[in-house]
């Protein structure tokens, strides 16, 4: 029952911070209105009713609390700076009930006990930048749904409407310890559309897999990709200055759009005061709401702070230009993605409270990636900034733990004072923050969702394999018992299980 509440009416259960960020969800409209009462109403909620229908999950969601699970005798890394050797994690009703040193507070009735001697336990990995489901494997024209390259501003799109749950990469990512992914539209457009945070369990569609209570996120892109795509079409933008102009124009329109709705809401308020009588022609015009525009609505919600901006930018100068645009229109950037030159302006990024989501050491595949260095994450962390490891690739998404290990090693070799906890946070707590779900996952703490990975050895080793992966306390991957594939597409094709590994 708790799950149903979380899923269908999570405004009641979810903490305020997340609720406020996700105010465009109809279930949250109460909260949104409460906020609007204090701040000037930018976008009134009349379209909340339409949103409500757009947000309604139609899939039946059979959420059953799993039996309690007690993982014992492991090295437990909490991503809060604690390391219990040996330690335990107790999962109950989908949540972490307790975590600590020793064997734990006894075995609850009916609990599954996992003897994890010699093994390591961490929070599930959160990959903040994935295109799984929207650019699925096998690559096919039939499922190439990641970039809507028909207009540089496609803010009205939602990645969840491209998401193909049969993507064979999803299960492989889970086998790499990933429990949550931020699925984003591609970077061909300046504003690609809304992303969706997916909680990794096999289900029929994106809405059923959507991370309960996750806020709205928006994919934006600067630099080479949009100008190349539209330049080749002999359309704007074809230059970086064209990129920025198109963006400023879009936000300018969105600001007017927000004001139009605001005016309309005020007029409605006035009409309400006058009472129901006096319905003349002028009043009818007054009553007519502005035309709804999904793209401008999204941008207006960005300016209201209700949507988190996830901005694809490589170069330092592009990130600075992006921050200028954000400043002009009064919104915050949650995280720069890829951000290979973050190290050059880490002081600025830290001052603006912007996180980065990046690779460990990818570089050189295009001009804006030429200055990537392996110490990027370490330097950002040293400066007090938030860094996360992302994949952007279904291959890299299976070995994110190695990426964190490599970035840690590179930083240490350069004399940066960082430790395993920092590296673990690149995989869990920090990307969870970037996706606005850090109050629910990202650390092993009582009360958080029981997204837990048991590793064969230190997860920062090349040889580490995720052996058991739990999502909401349910075992979603067990390397010793790999059964039928998640993906319907792979039925009858994958003749052998996903790697068991080990000689």
């Amino acid at each position, binding site marked *: 029952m708790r799950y149903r509440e979380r899923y269908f009416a999570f405004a009641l259960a979810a903490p305020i911070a997340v609720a406020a960020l996700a105010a465009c969800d109809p279930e949250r409209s109460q909260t949104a209105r409460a906020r609007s009462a204090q701040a000037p109403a930018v976008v009134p909620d009349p379209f909340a009713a339409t949103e409500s229908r757009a947000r309604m999950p139609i899939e039946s969601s059979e959420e059953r609390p799993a039996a309690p699970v007690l993982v014992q005798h492991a090295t437990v890394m909490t991503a809060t700076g604690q390391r219990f050797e040996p330690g335990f994690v107790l999962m109950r009703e989908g949540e972490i009930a307790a975590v600590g040193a020793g064997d734990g507070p006894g075995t609850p009735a009916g609990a599954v006990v996992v003897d994890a001697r010699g093994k390591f336990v961490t929070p599930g990995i959160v990959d903040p930048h994935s295109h799984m489901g929207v650019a699925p*494997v*096998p*690559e*096919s024209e039939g499922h190439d749904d990641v970039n809507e390259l028909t207009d540089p501003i496609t803010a009205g799109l939602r990645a969840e409407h491209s998401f193909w749950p049969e993507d*064979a*990469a999803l299960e*492989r990512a889970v086998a790499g310890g990933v429990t949550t992914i931020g699925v984003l539209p591609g970077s061909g457009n300046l504003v690609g559309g809304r992303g969706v945070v997916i909680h990794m369990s096999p289900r029929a569609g994106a809405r059923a897999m959507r991370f309960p209570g996750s806020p709205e996120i928006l994919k934006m892109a600067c630099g*080479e990709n949009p100008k190349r795509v539209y330049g080749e079409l002999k359309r704007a933008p074809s230059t970086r200055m064209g990129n920025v102009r198109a963006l400023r124009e879009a936000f300018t329109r969105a600001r007017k759009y927000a004001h139009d709705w605001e005016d309309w809401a005020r007029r409605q308020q006035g009409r309400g005061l006058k009472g129901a009588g006096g319905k003349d022609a002028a009043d009818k015009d007054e009553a007519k709401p502005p035309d709804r525009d999904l793209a401008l609505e999204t941008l207006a919600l960005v300016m209201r702070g209700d949507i988190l901006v996830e901005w694809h930018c490589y170069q330092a100068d592009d990130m600075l230009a992006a921050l200028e645009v954000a400043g002009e229109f009064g919104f915050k950037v949650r995280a720069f993605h890829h951000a290979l030159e973050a*190290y*050059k302006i*880490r*002081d600025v990024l830290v001052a603006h409270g912007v996180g980065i989501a990046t690779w460990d*050491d*990818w*570089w*050189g*595949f*295009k*001009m804006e990636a*030429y*200055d*990537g*260095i*392996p*110490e990027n994450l370490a*330097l950002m962390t040293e*400066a007090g900034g938030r860094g996360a490891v992302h994949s952007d690739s*279904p*291959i890299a998404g*299976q*070995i994110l733990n*190695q990426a964190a*290990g*490599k970035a*840690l*090693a590179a930083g*240490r*070799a*350069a004399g940066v004072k960082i430790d395993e906890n920092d590296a673990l946070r690149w995989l869990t707590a920090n990307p969870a923050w970037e996706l606005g779900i850090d109050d629910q996952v990202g650390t092993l703490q009582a009360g958080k969702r029981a997204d837990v990975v048991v590793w064969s050895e230190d997860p*920062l*080793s*090349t*040889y*580490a*394999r995720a052996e058991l992966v739990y999502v909401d306390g349910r075992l979603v991957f067990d390397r010793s018992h790999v059964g039928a594939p998640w993906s319907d597409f*792979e039925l009858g*094709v*994958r*003749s*052998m299980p*996903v*790697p*068991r*590994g*080990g*000689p």
Partner: protein
Amino acid sequence: VSRVLARAGALAALAAVVWGGRAQAEETPPIAITHALVYVPGGGPPIADATVVLAGGKVQAVGTSVATPPGAQIVDGRGKTVTAGFIDADTEVGVVEVDGEPGASDAATRGPLSPALRMVDGYDPRSAVIPVTRAGGVTSVVVAPRAGALAGQSAFVDLAGDTQAEAVVRPSLAQYARADEDEARQVGTRGALWMTLRQAFDDARFYAAHRAQYDSNASRPLGLRRIDLEALLPVLRGEQPLVMTVHRASDIETALRFADELKLRLVLAGASEAWLMRDEIAKAKVPVILDPLEDLPTQFDRLRSRSDSAALLAGAGVSVVLSTFSSHNARLLWQRAGNAVRLGMDHDAAIRAVTEAPADAFGLKGYGRLAAGAVANVVVWSGDPLQIGTRAEHVFVRGREQSLETRQTLLLNRYRTLPFTHDGSR
């Protein structure tokens, strides 16, 4: 000095370059790496507390009772691991500076049939990618052509030296064919692709037997230019391997049959579904070059990809070569090998898969093995070469220690403290 130009074609023979010349000939003081854990050829475990002596560009001696020559520069190998320099068997190092920039990328060829194309001619020994790759413990690479049913000839280079003449060891190492889904689409269908390949080799065989008629315009019409026909002759004679990129098990079956019919020296590359044909591949003694991280059914010709295919192939007796198939990520060859181990391959076998196995697949004598007389391409690692956190601390190419400074370390130093200034002042 390697000179394999003799029969590589009339045009190539005109260029009487002494490849790999100067750097190798140059005198360097002997070097002794002492008390290290040393990987030696033969498949056994590494030798503890061993000494490796390098002199005159060669490995002089390897063993536990090797004396340090007088005047030798000593590298204390205590706690370190020593291997032959890693060899990445399929890369774009030195021909791709920036992949997305046509002006800085010379990897992809034009047209389906260009067997005369030589990657050596586009190789830039001053590429910023080279020091980065070397710092990852890779001392030699195969620079391979991309795209095209018959794509051209790879070069084998050592990652040292400022000129092509210094760096290049074998200007024409192998011929490349592609018989994967992408190439089949270019030509039309798989059948059309194999027909194209057969036609090309048939033309070359006819040309070899009727050179005089060809020169006097009395030959039947041939589909290839003379320069391309010439390029296929060493392949037909079995002197040069044909590296075929192929993924689907049934395509591998066709490739094995094709090579058997024409008596070619086949090497398989990519080979996502090779594990399904592992017994046949082992029987045909065909080496397989693969990337152990490519475990996804990314295309329809590799729906049965598996992450443990390296282990399965090695277990069946196939000679497995691990590669990054990359330019900028060739430096991560150690990680590819480490992942092969994670996914079930024997650790020592994974080391061999990036040292001995690539040398054997291409017949590169003196490479990939730490043994007396071998080319002194040697790496001293801070620990297990395949483990995260281990660094290549000393990299020797032909007996000379290489700088580990890269464009990336220069960037790091420039931005190590902020605010940045060009001259480092504050």
